[in-house]
């Protein structure tokens, strides 16, 4: 194949962009880069060519822990059936102002 350099693969980074001041960083995508400095530069070129960001975070992809997708929703089920956690559950105050 092309050369031996291809065996030393650049690690994968996840990229988070702050769209403008006052907003949180949001996942934009991923890229490969040899180190953090290059990852940030590449992220700027790849994900902010049209003023999409005012700040960039890069995180090594293997540093991210995720919930198990195989839990078939069970993991998040405890939030279901608990409508009392929402303001709309309480109806007696209807018509009463500022409540």
């Amino acid at each position, binding site marked *: 194949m*092309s050369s031996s350099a291809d065996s*030393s693969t*650049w690690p*994968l980074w996840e990229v988070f962009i702050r769209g403008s001041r006052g907003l949180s960083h949001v996942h934009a995508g991923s890229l490969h880069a040899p180190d953090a400095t*290059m990852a940030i530069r590449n992220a700027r070129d790849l994900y902010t*060519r049209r003023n999409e960001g005012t700040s960039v975070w890069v995180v090594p992809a293997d540093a991210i822990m995720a919930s198990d997708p195989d839990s078939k929703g069970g993991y998040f089920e405890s939030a279901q059936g608990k409508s009392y956690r929402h303001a709309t559950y309480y109806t007696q105050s209807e018509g009463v102002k500022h409540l």
Partner: protein
Amino acid sequence: MSPQNHQHAPLRLADEADAAAARDEAESGQHRFDEIIADDSRIEPRDWMPESYRKSLVRQVSQHAHSEIIGMQPEGNWISRAPSLKRKAILMAKVQDEAGHGLYLYSAAETLGTPREDMYDQLYSGKAKYSSIFNYPARTWADVGAIGWLVDGAAIVNQVPLCRASYGPYGRAMVRICKEESFHQRQGWEILYSLSHGTQEQREMAQAAVDRFYGPALQMFGPPDGDSPNSQQSMAWNIKRFTNDELRQRFVDMIVPQVEALGLTLPDPELKWNEERGHYDFAELDWDEFFAVIKGNGPLSRQRLEHYRSARDEGAWVREAAVAYANRASQEQDRDRAALIGA
């Protein structure tokens, strides 16, 4: 499940239990997958998915990525010869976008478990396919305009419905790409507009470029529906939303008024409005040529691949140096840390 968990059970039973567990998982996974597709919701990277869905997506998304990467070449050639500094800057921005689109798509394909290097190697070895359109040369400056207007225009018609593809990362990459692609189409149209409103010679150059790219651009939607075996499955999985012929028709309907605004014509004597269908009728395309180009006999098939290979080979030392630098920096950091702890 590791064998240690079954130390007391005969190995054969353990294997059977594993197989049964895998079957259960596949069954409930398939059920959940079918539900998500039926709801027109999105499949995400860590979800269970049928192997055929995964394979089909890797093929489609990586081919799409390769097309963006090879697609830099026809226009890249014109950067140094663009007629003004502004045109050069615009063309560089466009070619940089194509590189970016390739990278978004490789990232999406990678989430399906295929390493990036494998995809690069498949393109390098010639095993992977990419859109045939990029095997045609950009002979004149007007061709750069025709590529922007017709090739990127066809790509947009193809890609807008892909923003709703059932695989989340693919759809998200497409949203980003579509936002950037409309500048490509407009700048191409403007190049042709300038030429078609210039001298007689420029006007002829513009018309010749449209004549060259019309057929190949229409073929970008793929073979007619009857000859497109993968389409049906792809539509059942909500990856593809419209058939090749539907998208091709949409594109023709779109470009007829656009070519009129340019003051040029499309090279199809059979092209005419069909009141009954509410669409333009157009002539059958040269499918023999299409399949010949797909098989690697396009005008520039060999040159495109050779150029890709040399760019990759010649850039190898840069990638090696970057890795060496990163390794040394992290070693020095480790040493500094060890020295601090020792102090």
